[in-house]
């Protein structure tokens, strides 16, 4: 009895210890946020104690100074290559707030942004710092701008009503409001960040700024949830053309637009994958039909990173992801590559071999754009602005990269245009031209045309999205064969003319795979039956053996008249 009790209590103790060790998950953030927003904040500047600021200063010197600079002016060591630029704390302008447009953020706003970082920028989340440390950092951040110590400018958080349920009506209403309130001027009709003024946007410091692609909420700087979207719309983003709608629209309408934006993607996280499956199509692939023939093929989304490995680096590729679909018929395989681009640039020329302007020159050229005459009014005459811009010599382009020879084993060509030993086959589409071209890559410095005419394709640009179809015979003279049931490495590159990308300066993906799904997927029935029968035979043999030996032992016992229990063999 006692031993049982001890055992029980020991188990209980163990459970408690485990629970304590692992730590209960912390409460949801928006609860804290809401609590803060609703509470009465005293109109005293919350600047923390001297000790807190000192502690924050130490942490700042270790973790933050590299980007935000010693003076907090956003001019750190790293700033050179960063876009968006690191926040300049001296201006007191912060994007992600719970306070009205133009106002300072609350302390909690600063804490939150340090805690969770800004997705798809170089500002990371800092989950490992303690609450105390983050708070101290926030206090220290405030020392850079004198505004924080002024009593009048103590921020008063806006009210954030609880989210109403999202219904098809609210979404429809949101769509209407979205159009009526001019959101589409920057964000585009389908939210792809391709509005007519998108290409002219500048932030307060005169740097070009891209309108958010509303179909990819995971890239939202303020967070992907409906609450985040609503907050951004309510408060606006200080220092950017994004205005506050707190006064212009009542909360219900803002929620409706939020619902519409949330419905554009349907997911808060990107479904990145590593495989594109080419489905078999019975009908011959007809390029004239465009994207519709790909309806049966699953969509694979691959993340795009900047080409920062070879000289001619691009630290801020315009596209963050491509989606790919593939089908094949008896003769050919076709890949549909789609990505979002705020503007179709079809006036220049593109070529993977074109030299890239030196990084230093590009860096030097960037801030040259003077602050816009009236940054507060981004909607001023978008058509005129577009007309003024001289035709760019940079051009949109896309390339699919596959190995020239099917890899044996693990060996693949280098993922940036191959290497000297293992070359790659590039299907390159200069989107100013009607047809794709082919190149052979043996490293990014050694790309030569190898146009056999095997690859054909069509490209179209619609509402901020490029759709490019490449088609090639399954077995072509110019490259590796696509075999049903086989995997092939595949990689993609995207050039954005608007961001002056060409040659090595581009966005690219690592190696992923394309799988040519056989027309008939092998059935599992045969192996299942074999396994089951095999096990059944073993079972019956074991049972038979046990019964037989038991019986013979019993017989022996009967003969000997012994009373031993049956001998068993382990």
């Amino acid at each position: 009895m006692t031993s049982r009790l001890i055992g029980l209590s020991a188990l209980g103790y163990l459970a408690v210890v485990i629970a304590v060790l692992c730590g209960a998950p912390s409460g949801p953030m928006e609860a804290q946020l809401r609590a803060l927003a609703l509470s009465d904040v005293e109109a005293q500047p919350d600047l923390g104690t001297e000790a807190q600021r000192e502690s924050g200063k130490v942490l700042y010197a270790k973790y933050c100074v590299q980007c935000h600079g010693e003076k907090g002016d956003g001019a750190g060591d790293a700033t050179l290559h960063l876009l968006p630029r690191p926040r300049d704390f001296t201006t007191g302008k912060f994007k992600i707030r719970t306070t009205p447009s133009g106002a300072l953020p609350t302390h909690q706003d600063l804490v939150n942004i340090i805690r969770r970082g800004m997705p798809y920028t170089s500002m990371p989340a800092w989950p490992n710092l303690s609450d105390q440390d983050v708070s101290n950092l926030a206090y220290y951040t405030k020392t850079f701008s004198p505004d924080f110590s002024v009593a009048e400018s103590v921020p008063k958080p806006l009210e954030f009503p609880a989210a109403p349920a999202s219904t098809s009506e609210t979404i429809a209403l949101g769509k209407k409001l979205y159009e009526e309130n001019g959101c589409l001027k920057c964000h585009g009709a389908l939210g792809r960040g391709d509005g007519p003024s998108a290409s002219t946007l500048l932030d307060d410091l005169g740097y070009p700024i891209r309108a958010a692609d509303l179909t990819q909420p995971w890239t939202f700087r303020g967070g992907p949830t409906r609450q985040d979207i609503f907050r951004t719309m309510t408060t606006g983003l200080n220092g950017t053309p994004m205005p506050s709608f707190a006064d212009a629209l009542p909360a219900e309408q803002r929620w409706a637009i939020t619902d519409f934006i949330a419905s554009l993607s349907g997911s808060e996280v990107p479904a990145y994958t590593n495989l594109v499956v080419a489905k078999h199509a019975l009908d011959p692939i007809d390029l004239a039909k465009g994207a519709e023939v790909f309806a049966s093929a699953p969509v694979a989304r691959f993340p795009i990173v900047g080409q920062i490995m070879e000289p001619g680096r691009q630290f801020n590729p315009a596209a963050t992801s491509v989606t790919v679909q593939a089908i094949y018929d008896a003769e050919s395989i076709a890949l549909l590559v789609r990505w979002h681009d705020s503007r179709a640039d079809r006036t220049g020329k593109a070529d993977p071999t074109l030299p890239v302007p030196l990084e230093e020159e590009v860096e030097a050229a960037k801030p040259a754009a003077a602050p816009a005459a009236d940054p507060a009014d981004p909607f001023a005459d978008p058509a005129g602005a577009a007309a003024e811009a001289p035709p760019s010599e940079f051009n949109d382009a896309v390339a699919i990269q596959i190995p020239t020879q099917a890899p044996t084993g693990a060996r693949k060509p280098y993922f940036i245009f191959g290497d000297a030993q293992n070359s790659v086959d590039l299907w390159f589409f200069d989107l100013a031209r009607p047809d794709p071209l082919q190149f052979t890559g043996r490293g990014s410095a050694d790309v030569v045309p190898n146009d056999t005419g095997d690859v054909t394709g069509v490209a179209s640009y619609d509402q901020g999205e490029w759709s490019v179809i490449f088609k090639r015979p399954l077995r072509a003279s110019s490259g590796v064969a696509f075999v049903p049931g086989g995997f092939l490495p595949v990689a993609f590159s995207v050039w954005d003319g608007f961001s002056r990308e060409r040659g090595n300066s581009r966005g690219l993906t690592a190696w992923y795979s394309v799988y040519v799904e056989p027309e008939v997927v092998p059935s599992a029935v045969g192996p299942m039956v074999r396994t089951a029968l095999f096990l059944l035979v073993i079972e019956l043999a074991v049972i038979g053996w046990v019964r037989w030996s038991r019986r013979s032992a019993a017989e022996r016992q009967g003969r000997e008249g012994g009373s031993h229990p049956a001998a068993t063999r382990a």
Partner: protein
Amino acid sequence: MTIPHSVRIAGLVLVTTAFYGYVGQLVPQREVQPPTETVLRADMTTADMVKVGGELMVGKGLCMTCHTIGKSGALRFPDLEGVATRASTRIPGMSEIEYFAKSLYAPDSFIVAGFNPGMPVINKPPIGLTDQEILCVIAFLQTLGGTPTVTLQTSHAYYTPPGGAPAAPGGAPTNATPTNTTPAQAPVTR
């Protein structure tokens, strides 16, 4: 139905070894190839040849086992510092290339005063440099006090590259048959 012990033991041994063999199949399989070899390309420049020649001197050629570069004092074999200057002037009318070639193919032809003969033949086993490799060595030797001029197309008394001009007149009779006349296939230790 008793199975003999010897059969059981054999079964156990078989099953155990099979099990470990199976464990060996479960782990990642990777064949490690020897380090890649540089290939003497037909289009090597003289500068490339100097580099390869230097490596050959240390590695496959075993030259530095006996010779030194830039050492003085009581030496057992001639020091090679400035050897190109000496080679071009030692025998009147003989170019440094011919001098080096003869020294390498027929080592006892020239014995520097004060040293004993003892150099092995370079183009035969155990060292066995190919004719192209010897050209590289000559290129390297030329840098020691001179300017390298040889290319893979250079011919000398002992070797005529395929399609190259015949050896300069007055050279020693050829006694080394070029066995490997395809430069692209001659591997060299890096």
